[in-house]
């Protein structure tokens, strides 16, 4: 990985405005098709990179495997939310109508399971959904308004019709030159390094 630089670097560099001592933070490689990305991703994974990612306009079936992403813990968060909602819903109704404010109306029991099911059910769903949405944001670190990737104009097509691999400078195997050559070799048609 430490070959001497003998030619012009195979990538463009984008530097942050007003940066005093620009250092590379992330490298992006563009691919034309999803298939190219898929096979490239497998190779990047096999190369031993850790802090890298693919960027695609739509979720690509099988890419998780190609990247070696492990299953998320999100279902457990959702299950926890649902459990809280159901028990909380029953306890809330039992306490409010059965203990705190028992109120006789048309001879119905203060608290009963059948009449409590609808509200407990809705709260189960509501809190599960909060778990699913909030959990998704938390696990993905969103919202993340600032991202060095947004400095690249080319990268704007990542949400439209192009496929990208990004490698962070924090990765142990990061080296702009050799990484760029490696990615070119596996089908990237453009490489950019973003510096800050």
């Amino acid at each position: 990985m430490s070959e001497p630089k003998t030619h012009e670097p195979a990538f463009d560099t984008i530097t942050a405005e007003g940066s005093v001592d620009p250092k590379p933070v992330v490298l992006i490689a563009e691919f034309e098709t999803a298939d190219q990305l898929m096979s490239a991703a497998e190779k990047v994974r096999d190369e031993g990179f850790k802090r890298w990612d693919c960027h695609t306009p739509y979720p690509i079936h099988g890419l998780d495997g190609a990247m070696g992403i492990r299953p998320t813990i999100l279902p457990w968060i959702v299950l926890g939310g649902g459990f809280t909602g159901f028990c909380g819903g029953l306890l809330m109704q039992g306490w409010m109508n059965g203990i705190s404010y028992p109120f006789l109306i048309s001879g119905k029991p203060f608290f009963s399971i059948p009449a409590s099911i609808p509200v407990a059910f809705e709260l189960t769903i509501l809190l599960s959904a909060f778990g699913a949405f909030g959990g998704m944001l938390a696990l993905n670190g969103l919202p993340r308004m600032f991202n060095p990737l947004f400095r690249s104009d080319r990268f704007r097509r990542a949400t439209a019709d192009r496929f990208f691999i990004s490698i962070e400078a924090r990765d142990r195997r990061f080296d702009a030159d050799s990484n760029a050559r490696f990615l070119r070799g596996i089908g990237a048609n453009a490489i950019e390094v973003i510096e800050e």
Partner: protein
Amino acid sequence: MGHKQTIDLSTENRSLGGLSGQLIGFGAVLAVLGLIGTLLLGNLEGAFESHSEPHAAGGAAHSSDPTHSNGHSADHSGGDHGMAHGYVSTWSIWHPYLVSASWLLAICLGAIFFVLIHHVTMASWSTVVRRLAEAVSRNFVLMGLLFIPILMPGQMDKLYKWIHPDPGDSIIAVKEAYLNYDFFLIRMAIYFLIWIGLSFWYHKNSVQQDADGDLKRTTRMAHFSPLGLILFAMSITFAAYDILMSLDAHWFSTIFGVYLFGGSVLSFHAFLALIVIWLQANGRLTRAVSDEHMQDIGKMMFAFTVFWAYIAFSQYMLYWYANIPEETAWFLRRQENMLWGSWGWLLIIGRFLIPFLFIMSKHVKRSRPTLAVAAIWMLIMQWADMYYLVMPQINGGEEFPFTMVDITIPIGFLGLFLIGLALSLRGHSLIAEKDPRMPESLAFENA
């Protein structure tokens, strides 16, 4: 999608072959066991005495109990509550018989629904198992035969009070135009004609396609399926009213047909999972039906577990909340005493809660042993549900009329059912060989 290798069907063992003998043998053993058990235990418990003695009834477990002395049906139906009854309150052998018959009928109903709905939606994932469903649905013939004894003139009044209503029972009098013996027989004939017709026609077309590969058959089956579904919907609804709801001729519920439907589809998927697991354990269809398909069958089991609970809750909730006597009577018999009350909880927990939590996970659905456990459990629960619909009328729900024939009859019927299944599966492929959607089905993945 495109990354999965397509399975070559020609290397797959896809005929029942020697297994048919095994299945028939196993079925025969069960049938004989059931028959002997029923005769023996039934005799011990006095089940057949009712033939000679019109009022004799009740299980042995209770016959020694002085407070529930045998057979005073006249007392019970006329005297006890000072009101006319819409139901027969005396136990007869036909009660457990009907429980078991409706239990297996539900599986057949689910099977024909499966065939129809997958044609109407042009679904592909299910193509690999559709032949099995077609074979199961052919057991309607057996079910028709099993229902004949109940419908005999001298026997049916042991189940259905409306045949000989109490004098002055104005509620039954109102519905006499519908609830009368002749019309009932005609309706039963129509239901079974519809069911047998649909199942044979779909099975025939499907099997013939194995030979000629005619795509028009697929089109024709798809074209007929919406009409088939309408026939199915109407027949299952009124069959549910006739066979199960009219056991208490005073009681009524508009959702009752949907209730039977939910349980039917659920128990069919459970049965389907078991057939597949059994076939695969014997080296049939080992690769054609993949984990992905099992997961989908499991998903349907999960979905209909929830659906059943939804329908059951809707029915209970609306009657419980409004608290109108003629509607709650049916539920009161089922929850006013410990035994039937516990049975209700058994259904809530055993039929909904446990399966719901158990097969929620994808791993449980994809693993054969766990799915088999879930499927067997669900089939037992379907039986428990039918038991709950039929039995609590006896003695107005005061007692728990469990006898050993409750166990032996379903075993015997299951044996017959398996023999019927073996006969239907025999002689042709276990898979709809030339169905145009087979490649898609084989390559199916849960994405």
